[in-house]
């Protein structure tokens, strides 16, 4: 049986060097994310590189969630269609995902709970619950049994898993040994009974140390590395992880993380803290960002630096709270009434997330204006194996920030002084002899409210002038394989990995395709984008939304119309195969 309709037939499992995918499915609360994360770690330690994605519902227990890890012997940043091993912690996993397992793949399931017959895949019947109870002492360890079973099937070294589990459960203060015993039982069960049949043994490659990190962790680390000292936020999926990470580091890193009563308070507190002199951050999702819009304009008008992470999820409104989408771009570009400069950064990978956070703080302070870093659930919740994060690449440039000694030399301080660059040197409140005044009303150079319309005109020009400097800081989009390429795929944000792999697949099939990924989106890099568009015969914009927002922005900023849009708005990220199918 097996109607493989959902696995496009250009799937290339096993054709490239190593490419191995394991999907764990079950109800919320069964620990799929833990298994996925643990396995990703185990393989990372073995010299492989992992990419792990999470698909979960907006509930705490029950329902249906999956965690899918892909393992390669090189950098990986996308999830392709199909899985090699499906671990089913419940029946629904089999119903929904059995067709993703091609011939030669395996389904690990608990035959004592689920009855299965007739599969093209190997059926790996493991008494998960029983082994968990018998060996671990508790049925809840069945996820550890399953993790062990997956490794046993490939006869992969068991020890890294044991170490991982110990470390993890000791931290959580739970019975580490019980878990290890449960995992070992799973391991031995499949190693002994099924590994021959499955016949895809895997051994650690080397012991090169690499990191396994999620998008949210990378964003949070980027803020820490940039010297962020204040964060105020209100919980909202998918950005809460940033707050959680930073909240755990406050003592060690000397920062304050305050949970605000609402998003309005969150952004306004951050603005207040920034005015008083510390690098400040807030993070939210589209709904919370809606409430921050007035504060955004306040930062623009008072020229107060502020970094906002906008982690997108499918809208409108509450939408699908735990899924992914990229439908907030035009909103973010135009949010708040009136006109003021802003920068919008749209990282595509964990590394970019880290480094662009550093850049965000620098731009915010140099240009004294809000900077928005756009993320989405796919970026925020996915994990990457990466080589390293190099803090020496994170410079801290606080812009024209006046020290006490500078001020002593000055003859009267004016917070909003007119300058050629539009940037007024910034002093902090508390400096003897001067006062720092600013206002959400139109103001004069000192910062005092004014209704002098000549000053108004000049202040508008001064603020907008900053766009020039800001624009010059924007790096050109990353291109890949564009040399002589006839078709150009264009994307922004979390689609990076899927785009790149689509290009590889297409070119492997003889096509001539390149990609351009925009991760520094505003001020829009119109010149390099125009050039790239002109070089290709066909250009497709790939976006996780229903209307093709980047395509419209490209049209406004370059005058060019792209050949087509490849869109997706069902809450799930792109696979390379989906992009390829969209080209046809």
């Amino acid at each position: 049986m097996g109607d493989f309709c959902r696995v496009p037939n250009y799937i290339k499992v096993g054709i490239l060097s190593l490419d191995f995918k394991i999907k764990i499915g079950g109800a919320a609360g069964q620990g799929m994310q833990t298994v996925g994360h643990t396995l990703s770690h185990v393989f990372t330690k073995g010299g492989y590189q992992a990419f792990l994605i999470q698909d979960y519902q907006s509930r705490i227990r029950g329902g249906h969630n999956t965690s899918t890890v892909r393992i390669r012997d090189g950098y990986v940043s996308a999830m392709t269609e199909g899985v090699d091993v499906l671990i089913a912690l419940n029946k629904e996993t089999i119903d929904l995902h059995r067709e993703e397992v091609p011939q030669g793949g395996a389904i690990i399931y608990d035959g004592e709970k689920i009855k299965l017959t007739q599969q093209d895949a190997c059926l790996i019947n493991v008494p998960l619950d029983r082994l968990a109870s018998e060996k671990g002492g508790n049925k809840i360890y069945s996820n550890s049994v399953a993790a062990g079973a997956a490794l046993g099937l490939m006869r992969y070294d068991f020890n890294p898993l044991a170490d991982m589990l110990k470390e993890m459960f000791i931290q959580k203060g739970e019975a580490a040994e019980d878990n290890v015993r449960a995992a070992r039982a799973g391991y031995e069960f499949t190693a002994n009974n099924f590994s021959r049949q499955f016949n895809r043994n895997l051994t650690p490659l080397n012991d090169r140390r690499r990191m396994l990190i999620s998008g949210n962790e990378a964003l949070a680390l980027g803020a820490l590395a940039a010297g962020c000292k204040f964060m105020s936020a209100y919980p909202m999926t998918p950005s809460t992880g940033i707050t959680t990470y930073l909240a755990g580091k406050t003592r060690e890193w000397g920062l304050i993380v305050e949970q605000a009563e609402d998003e309005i308070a969150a952004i306004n507190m951050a603005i207040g803290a920034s005015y008083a002199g510390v690098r400040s951050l807030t993070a939210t999702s589209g709904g919370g960002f809606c409430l921050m819009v007035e504060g955004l304009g306040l930062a623009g008008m008072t020229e107060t630096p502020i970094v906002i992470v906008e982690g997108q999820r499918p809208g409108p409104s509450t939408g699908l709270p735990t899924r992914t989408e990229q439908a907030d771009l035009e909103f973010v570009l135009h949010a708040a009434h009136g006109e003021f400069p802003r920068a919008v950064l749209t990282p595509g990978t964990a590394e970019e997330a880290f480094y662009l956070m550093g850049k965000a703080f620098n731009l915010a302070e140099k240009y004294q204006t809000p900077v928005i870093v756009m993320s989405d659930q796919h970026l925020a919740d996915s994990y990457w194996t990466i080589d390293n994060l190099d803090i020496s690449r994170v410079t801290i440039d606080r812009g024209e920030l006046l020290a006490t000694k500078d001020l002593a030399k000055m003859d009267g301080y004016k917070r909003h002084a007119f300058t050629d660059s539009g940037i007024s040197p910034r002093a902090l409140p508390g400096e003897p002899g001067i006062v720092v005044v600013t206002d959400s009303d139109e103001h004069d150079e000192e910062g005092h409210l004014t209704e002098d319309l000549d000053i108004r005109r000049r202040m508008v020009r001064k603020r907008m002038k900053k766009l020039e400097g800001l624009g010059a800081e924007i790096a050109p989009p990353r291109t890949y394989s564009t040399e002589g390429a006839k078709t150009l795929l264009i994307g922004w944000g979390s689609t990076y990995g899927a785009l790149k792999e689509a290009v590889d697949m297409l070119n492997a099939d003889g096509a001539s395709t390149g990609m351009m990924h925009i991760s520094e989106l505003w001020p829009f890099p119109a010149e390099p984008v125009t050039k790239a568009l002109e070089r290709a015969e066909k250009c497709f914009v790939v976006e996780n939304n229903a209307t093709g927002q980047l395509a419209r922005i490209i049209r406004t900023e370059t005058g060019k119309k792209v050949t087509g849009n490849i869109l997706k708005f069902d809450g799930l990220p792109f696979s390379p195969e989906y992009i390829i199918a969209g080209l046809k």
Partner: protein
Amino acid sequence: MVELKDYQGQETAWCPGCGNFMILRAVQEALVGLDMEPHEVLLVSGIGQSGKLPHYMKCNTFNSLHGRTLPPATGAKLANHELTVIAIAGDGDCYGEGGNHFMHTIRRNINITLVVHNNQVYGLTKGQASPTSEIGFVTKVQPEGVFESAFNPISVAVALNASFVARGFTGEKNHLVGLLQKAIQHDGFALVDILQPCPSFNKLNTFKWYKDRVYKIEDEEPGYDPRDRMAAFQKAQEWGDRIPIGLIYHCERLTMEEQEPVLARGPLVKQPFDRSGFEKLLKEFY
């Protein structure tokens, strides 16, 4: 020695006879009396007639959004708790648009003084009812008179166990100066709600109306104990023929700054940033 002229600011744009002039004067005198220098003080205001006050002073000023006086004040205080932070708000500003921050800033007990210019009306937008307007107050937007019961800030602050709750009146400037000084010196969140006539738009609660009603608690009830929460709640309900002014409630609570361990090392803005531990931090991810 700090003098009044050190706090001299821009020309005012209030109406003649407005109670705000007295508040301005009282804030200036309070700061001068405490010998605080303008650069040590940060006024954060909202939007409304009250929101203009800082421009008529000369000290650090963050004139924020309508209703959003308290969050930036909180952020600034947490970033530099050596600053004396005073939040200036209107009744619409603070109890209407910004009502949520009012409650939650009280919960935080951060060391900020909140000064509310309570004229029981929306002044700057020309006379609509504010949350503190009385039932029956007629305006162009409330032609049948206000239906909602008046917001009682004192009552709510006591209910939330705010650590310092006082009411002043612009017709009692010296008394007000004293209250403001106590509030500024109080370690924790302090509310000073000030009855402020708005001759342009509040023709009900006029200077005379207030003058005829207010009494100083300390004068008339020397035995009143502001530490007695039940008594304070009872006092908070007094409104009508007799309106108490003075310190109504006072309690000891840990401030947010005291609880935040990071601040024990000094103001956040002055703490050096040390990235040397970053490599160690990354170990978590290996």
